[in-house]
C-alpha cells in the first residue's frame, strides 16, 4: 500500500468528521473519494495533505508515518476546488511557483513549465493572468501547478465542481488520461456518483464520517454492501414493503426496498414478454424524454417505480395499463444491503 490511513478520527467541536477511517491505496491508482456533502471526504483529503491534523490515528505514505511531517514537506500536489491560482501571477509564474520555492535554476524552471504548458494544451497562454482564462483552462493550470514539483501523490478536491457540464465531461476524460499517462497516485473527492464511476480506478464511499465500501466502480455499483451505498447509486425508487411483489425471498428485519430503473422491465399489453406470467400490472403516471431514452413512472401495487424504455420500442402513454416485471431488488436490514433476484428467472420458462 502506498498511502495508508489507520483508524483516523477527527472532530470539529461536536461534529465527528472522521469516524475510525482506515483504507489503503496502491501506487499509481486513481481513487475517487465519494460521498454526499458533509460526509467527511474533504476532511480526509486535507488531513492527508497536512492542512488538518487528525485527533488520532496514523497517516502513512510510502511506509512512513507522516502525521508530524508539515504539509510543505510531504511532497503532495493539491488541486483546490476553487483552484486557488495566484491571481497576481501569470500562468507561467503560477506553474513555476513550486519550482522556485525548491530553488531550481531558471533554465530548469523554463523547461519544466514549457513541458507542462504543452501537456495541458495551453501553449501560447503563458503570459495570461488567471482572470483571463476560462474555467476549464484554470483547472488545467491548477493541475499543472500541482504537478510541477513532481509530487508522488496528487490530491484533487472536487476538481470538476466549478465547471459547466459540457466542459466537465471533456475534462474528466482528459484528467483520467493525464493521470494514467503520468502514473502519479491520485485521490479525488467528489459528490457526483457518475463522475466517480467514470473516472476512478477504485471508489471509496463515505457517509457520515465513516467508510461504507471500497471497491472497483462496477463492484460498488452492482453489489452494494450497505444500505447507504445501495441507495446512493443509480436513480433508485425506494419504498418500504416489498411483500406485495410476488416471487422474492423474504428477508428478516427488512426495512427498505430499493429498485433501480435498470431492474424494471415495462412492456405494453400487446408486446411479447418472456416473464409475462410473473409480471405485475401497473399504470403509467408520467412519461419524460431524457435525451438518451424515455423515462417512465409506473404505479404498481401502490408503489411508484422509475423505469426506462428505448426509442425503438413502441411508445407508451400516460394512463396506459402495462406489464411490469422486476428482475431484482435491493433490500436493506439495519446497515446491510441484500440483493434479491426474482425467482422466475431461475425457473424453467415454457413459451407457448
Amino acid at each position: 500500500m502506498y498511502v495508508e490511513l489507520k483508524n483516523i478520527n477527527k472532530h470539529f467541536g461536536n461534529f465527528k468528521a472522521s469516524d475510525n477511517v482506515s483504507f489503503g491505496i496502491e501506487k499509481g491508482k486513481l481513487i475517487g473519494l465519494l460521498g454526499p456533502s458533509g460526509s467527511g471526504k474533504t476532511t480526509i483529503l486535507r488531513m492527508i495533505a497536512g492542512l488538518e491534523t487528525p485527533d488520532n490515528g496514523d497517516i502513512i505514505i510510502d511506509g512512513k508515518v507522516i502525521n508530524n511531517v508539515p504539509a510543505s514537506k510531504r511532497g503532495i500536489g493539491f488541486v483546490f476546488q476553487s483552484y486557488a491560482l495566484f491571481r497576481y501571477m501569470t500562468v507561467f509564474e503560477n506553474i513555476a511557483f513550486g519550482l522556485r520555492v525548491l530553488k531550481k535554476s531558471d533554465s530548469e524552471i523554463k523547461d519544466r513549465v514549457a513541458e507542462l504548458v504543452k501537456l495541458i494544451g495551453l501553449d501560447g497562454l503563458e503570459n495570461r493572468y488567471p482572470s483571463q482564462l476560462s474555467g476549464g483552462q484554470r483547472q488545467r493550470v491548477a493541475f499543472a501547478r500541482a504537478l510541477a514539483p513532481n509530487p508522488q501523490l496528487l490530491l484533487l478536491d472536487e476538481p470538476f465542481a466549478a465547471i459547466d457540464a459540457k466542459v466537465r465531461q471533456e475534462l474528466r476524460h482528459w484528467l483520467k488520461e493525464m493521470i494514467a499517462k503520468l502514473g502519479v497516485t491520485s485521490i479525488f473527492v467528489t459528490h457526483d456518483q457518475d463522475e466517480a464511476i467514470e473516472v476512478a480506478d477504485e471508489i471509496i464511499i463515505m457517509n457520515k464520517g465513516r467508510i461504507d465500501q471500497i471497491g472497483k466502480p462496477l463492484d460498488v455499483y452492482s453489489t452494494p454492501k450497505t444500505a447507504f451505498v445501495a441507495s446512493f447509486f443509480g436513480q433508485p425508487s425506494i419504498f418500504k414493503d416489498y411483500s406485495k411483489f410476488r416471487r422474492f425471498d423474504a428477508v428478516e428485519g427488512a426495512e427498505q426496498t430499493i429498485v433501480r430503473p435498470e431492474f424494471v422491465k415495462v412492456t405494453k399489453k400487446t408486446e411479447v414478454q418472456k416473464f409475462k406470467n410473473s409480471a405485475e400490472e401497473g399504470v403509467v403516471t408520467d412519461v419524460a424524454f431524457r435525451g438518451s431514452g424515455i423515462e417512465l413512472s409506473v404505479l404498481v401495487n401502490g408503489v411508484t417505480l422509475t423505469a426506462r424504455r428505448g426509442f425503438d420500442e413502441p411508445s407508451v402513454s400516460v394512463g396506459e395499463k402495462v406489464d411490469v416485471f422486476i428482475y431484482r431488488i435491493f433490500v436493506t436490514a439495519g446497515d446491510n444491503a441484500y440483493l434479491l433476484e426474482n425467482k422466475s428467472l431461475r425457473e424453467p420458462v415454457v413459451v407457448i
Partner: protein
Amino acid sequence: MYKETKSSKAVKWFLIGVSVLFVVLMLLLPLITVITEAFKQGFAVYEKAVTDNYTVKAFWLTLEATALAVVINTVFGLSAAWSLTKFHFRGKKILTTLIDLPVTVSPIIAGLIFLLTFGRQSPIFPLLQDWDVKIVFAVPGIVLATIFVTFPFISRELIPVLEARGNDEEEAAALMGAKGFTIFRKITFPHIKWAFLYGVVLCAARAMGEFGAVSVISGHLRGKTNTLPLHVEILFNEFQYVPAFAVASILVLLAIFILIARSLIEYNGKKKNKVEP
C-alpha cells in the same frame, strides 16, 4: 443607456449645482482666503514667515511625528488586519471594536489620557523621571498622540480586502513549501498593495493635521514641541494674521500634495485591476 427625461435632467442639474455650491463655499473659498491672506503683504513677508526659525522647526517636527506615526501604524495595521482576518481567537470582536476607538473619541480626550498616564499625577511618573524619560510636554508625547489618533487608518483599509478573499492561495503556496514571508511578499501583499498605500496616505494626512490631542500634550513650547497646526494657532492668537496664514498655506500645500498622491495611487490601482482583478 438610461434615457434622460425633462424632470430627471432637472434633478441631475440641481444635484450637481448643490454639490458645486457646497464645494465652492466650504472648500474653495476658504482655500483662496488662506492663499490671498498669506500673500496680502507681498511675497517678502510671506517668505519671511515661512522661513522663520520657529516655523521651520515646527515643520520638521510635524514631518517627524507623521513619519513615525506612519511607520508604527503600518506595523500595527498589518499585524492587526492579518490576525483579525486569518485567525480565530477569543476576544476578536472586542479587539475589532477597540481598534476603532481612536476615531470615535475626541482627540482632546486622547491628549488628556496621555497627560494623565505619563504626567506628574501618574503613578509611573517617578519611574519615568528615574530613567530620564520625558513624554509629556516633549516630542515623545506628540508622537504618541499622533500615533493614537491615526491608529486605525491602515488596518481599516486592509481588513475588508483581506476578508473578501479566503486563505486558499496562501494554503496552496504553503503546500508547495513556501515560507511565511515569501507567501506574504508574493501572494498576500500584491493583493493588498493598493489598499495599503491608500491607508498610508490617509494616515499621513491625518497625522499632519492633528491638532487636538497634540495640543493638550505638547505644552506649546515654541521651537521645541510646536507642530505646524499648533504654530498657526499661536500666531493667530498673537494677532500675527499674515504669518498665521502663511504657515497655514504650508499645510494646505501638504494636503494638496497628499491628495495628488492619493489620486495617483487610485488611478494606478484601477489601471492594474483591469488586467488582474
